[in-house]
């Protein structure tokens, strides 16, 4: 392990000792943060996997039903039904702090005015299969939105865990050993200087006698 390029003085030794103390404390704190992030991340990932499986399964079925329903009528008829959305949804994103990671908290609100309108699309050029597939997609939508929130949170937490892991490793395997080695080197050097100084004084004293 390469030691730091510093002058072996008492002042540097004192500075390095302070830095070592801070690094050791920082390492402990970051290690704790990493552990807690991992714990929360694992919980979230489990939740995410369950929800994703559920959503993927339901969405595949719903999309299959939609494709079949869509194929029963002219594509322009279907596109016309949904050309202008029947309702508008507002997305309100707030930030939540999990172990200093700012994760999104998404709130979806359907416009109150739109709720009053029962007509989502014209019935003339649609069919009951289409109603069924749209109902299925409507049921999945909140889960899909929840999944997007959880996946984004997981992604942000994974980035933070990676960053924290690098910091912990840098401190544990690079910074702290470097500091320790440099402190040891300075201490040795100072002791050596002290011994050299004592020997010189003894020699000077001998020369005087």
């Amino acid at each position, binding site marked *: 392990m390469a030691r730091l390029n510093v002058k072996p003085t008492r002042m540097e030794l004192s500075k390095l000792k302070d830095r070592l103390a801070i690094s050791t404390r920082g390492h402990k704190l970051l290690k704790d943060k990493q552990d807690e992030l991992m714990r929360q991340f694992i919980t979230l990932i489990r939740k995410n996997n369950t929800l994703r499986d559920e959503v993927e399964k339901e969405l595949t079925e719903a999309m299959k039903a939609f494709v*079949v329903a869509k194929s029963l009528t002219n594509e*322009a008829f279907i596109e*016309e039904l949904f050309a*202008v959305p029947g309702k508008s949804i507002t997305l309100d994103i707030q930030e939540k702090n999990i172990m200093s990671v700012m994760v999104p908290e998404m709130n979806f609100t359907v416009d109150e005015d739109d709720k009053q309108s*029962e*007509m989502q699309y014209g019935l*003339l050029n649609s069919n*009951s299969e289409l109603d069924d597939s749209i109902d299925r997609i409507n049921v999945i939508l909140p889960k899909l939105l929840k999944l997007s929130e959880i996946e984004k949170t997981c992604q942000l937490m994974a980035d933070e865990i990676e960053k924290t892991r690098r910091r912990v490793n840098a401190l544990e395997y690079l910074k702290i050993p470097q500091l320790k080695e440099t402190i040891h080197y300075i201490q040795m050097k100072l002791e050596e200087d002290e011994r050299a100084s004592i020997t010189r004084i003894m020699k000077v004293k001998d020369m005087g006698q």
Partner: protein
Amino acid sequence: MQDTQYKGVNTLLRVYETKLLLRDDYEKMLRAEGLREALEVLKSTEYLFDEHDVMENKNFDRFLIQRVKNIYDELFEVTPDSEVIQIFSLRYSYHNLKVLLKQRFTGLDLDHLLIPIGKNPLSTLRQLVNARQSDDLNPVMVEGVQLAIEDYETYGRLEAADVFMDTYFYKHMRKICDRLNNPTISQMADVLIDLDNLSTVVRSIHQNKSRSFLHTVLSSSGSISKKAIIDASEQGAVAVLNQLYLDKPYASRLQAVVNDQKDDLDPMVLDKVIDETIDELMEEATFQAFGPMPVIAFLFFVEKEVANIRLILVGKDNQIDENILRERMRPIYGP
């Protein structure tokens, strides 16, 4: 108009009918391993398409609509009374009006959704939506568009386009059928509108829609009064059927749906039964030697043929199970 005036068209139709796809063709398409194999079957038919382009863009509607448009254009020319053709082409005209109205209301460019099928060119429909007035179009259509625009301007409701165009489509169809003064056509209009109303009410009940919604979407142009349907709907879908439809000639088919599912009606099963009922009516019409009914029946089977081809092609493209496609196949012309 005398029934014999249609003898020329009806003779021509017998030739056209030979160009419709047969059960064997559908079987080959259904059994095809993939989209390319299904398209192979269509190559020997009247459908003209560039296989490479279709395989790349999967735009089946482009060539399907072209075929339908050719048939409508030809029949508009040779049929003594073009309003007979309008009974089916109105659906496209009212679709186009909805698109143009939504375009007017929102400012979006929806031109790609327009379908160039119908007695009146798209420019005439566009002029009606822009100017709210037209001397070339039927007053029923003009009134529908005027009311839709008025409603939007008063209440700002985008669904005005759907509500008014759906309602006026039936009104317009009724008006044409009354003017044609042909008992078979009038009876057909009754069946089509009554069964569409039944399908609408069952779908609405399943979606827990309110009484006022039913009042908005049901058509009053059928033989069963809208109020009676709405009143009966308070007691459920089965009550509507039992109270209002069991005296109809097609009651036995509908009765089977009730028996199967006791106190509820599955809208999807009902839609299939409705299709079969209309198919039966149209099959009878194909055997008539005189009058406009063979033209109407021919158009019905052309529309169903296009729907079946679209279903199979989309199904093959999306690897949908053959049995699911078979279940949803619409009535096929011929043995």
